[in-house]
């Protein structure tokens, strides 16, 4: 379970998260929607301590983590897998090494098992035969998928996706969205997905959160949101419902 209590994050005198309260239950898939620059990425980074809140608390599985030291955070980060908004692949390593890096670090595996898990992860995101390529030799969409593979190979209990399908073709987008759903069923993991894809949010989210100006404007199950009269929510829905 992840809980935010009165989370405030400022950059200089710009308040990005402004007293955010939210509870994410275990095993849930929560989608976070919001216009560009409302602080969605900042919120995700606060969970894993890559950014620290100025005020407020973050509780993960019964621990208040926001004042943790870097060393203490290791146990939290081990539980969490994060897919960054950018592919963020280590460009001095090959694709295989990129995915194997975390596997070797977090688990005691034989080389054979590492290879198997790397291949499985790549298969799940629908690319194969790129193991020996360097990230810089691949298109953005491919890098993005390798980045997903790198995270899911670790089978974390908490999955954080920052726009996993932005910039991907519609076919791959569908594959990835199903993957998110399958993973949370198989691993019973909690997933937080930042996305602009309302359509997909409505089909796989347990709950949807709409953020605006660092605060929660609307929250609810897909069905509840569909009935919402909130103007921002209607704007997000307009595109989907007109289809």
């Amino acid at each position, binding site marked *: 379970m992840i809980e935010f209590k009165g989370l405030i994050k400022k950059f200089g005198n710009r308040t990005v998260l402004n007293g955010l309260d939210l509870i994410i239950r275990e095993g849930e898939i929560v989608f976070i929607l919001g216009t560009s620059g409302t602080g969605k990425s900042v919120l995700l980074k606060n969970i894993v301590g*890559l950014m620290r809140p100025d005020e407020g608390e973050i509780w993960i599985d019964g621990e208040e983590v926001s004042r943790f030291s870097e060393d203490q955070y290791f146990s939290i980060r081990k539980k969490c897998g994060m897919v960054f908004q950018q592919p963020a692949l280590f460009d001095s390593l090959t694709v295989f090494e990129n995915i194997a890096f975390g596997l070797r670090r977090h688990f005691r595996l034989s080389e054979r098992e590492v290879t198997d898990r790397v291949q499985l992860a790549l298969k799940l995101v629908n690319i194969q035969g790129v193991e020996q390529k360097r990230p810089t030799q691949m298109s953005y969409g491919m890098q993005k998928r390798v980045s997903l593979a790198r995270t899911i190979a670790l089978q974390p209990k908490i999955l954080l996706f920052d726009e996993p399908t932005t910039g991907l073709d519609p076919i791959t987008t569908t594959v990835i969205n199903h993957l998110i759903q399958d993973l949370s069923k198989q691993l019973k993991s909690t997933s937080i997905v930042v996305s602009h894809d309302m359509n997909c949010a409505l089909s796989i989210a347990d709950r949807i959160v709409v953020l605006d100006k660092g605060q929660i404007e609307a929250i609810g199950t897909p069905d509840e949101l569909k009935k919402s009269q909130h103007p921002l929510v209607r704007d997000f829905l307009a595109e989907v419902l007109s289809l």
Partner: protein
Amino acid sequence: MISLFTETFLGVFRPPFRKKEFFQQLHFVANTSLAIIVFCVSFAAIVTILESSFHMKLVIQNDSMVPGFAAVLILRELAAIVTALLLASRIGAGYAAEIGSMQITEQIDALKMLGIDPINYLVVPRFLASIAGTMMLTVIANVFCLLSAILVSQLYLGFTFGMFISSMHRFVHFQDIIFSMIKGACFGAVIPIVASYFGFNCKQGAEGVGHATTNTVVLASIGIIVVDFILSYTFSHIY
């Protein structure tokens, strides 16, 4: 930046020790910089000895002490500082751009997510490699400086090899070589710390990386010259 330095320094003694990265970086610092450094310091030495001979002749009509002077100048200052300044632009800029772009493409964050301390993984190997590399290059630069000075003084100034050595003997002490290596090591420490500092604090975009590299070269060069002053001053009490 001070806290970065302390963390790096402590990180040197903390496992894991990243031998592979260290040797990669050492190769980058030492091997690939060797040619340009030998080339530049040799010319700097030639200019120094020709100039000092010219002026000595002009003022005291005698340049017999020139080899000794030049050798002292080379060993105490020239070789170490020219090497360090060249490395500041070459590897300082390289490190800043590398770490800076890792920062803005979230690769540093991805490392942290895997529980890898970026200081241990990125800075410590570079720090050690830069210290070792700069020290080695300083020694090599000293040798080449002296060789080219000897060569030029034989060809143009009419000193024989023996004359050069005996003139050198009167001025140069063994400590000079040690001090020059210490200088090299300290300069070598400055470069990666400054570069990593600007790299980690890199702002988004190509412009951010540009700023990080420029600032690194400027501040590392200033840092090297200040450290040089402090060390020369300290050593002057020990001679």
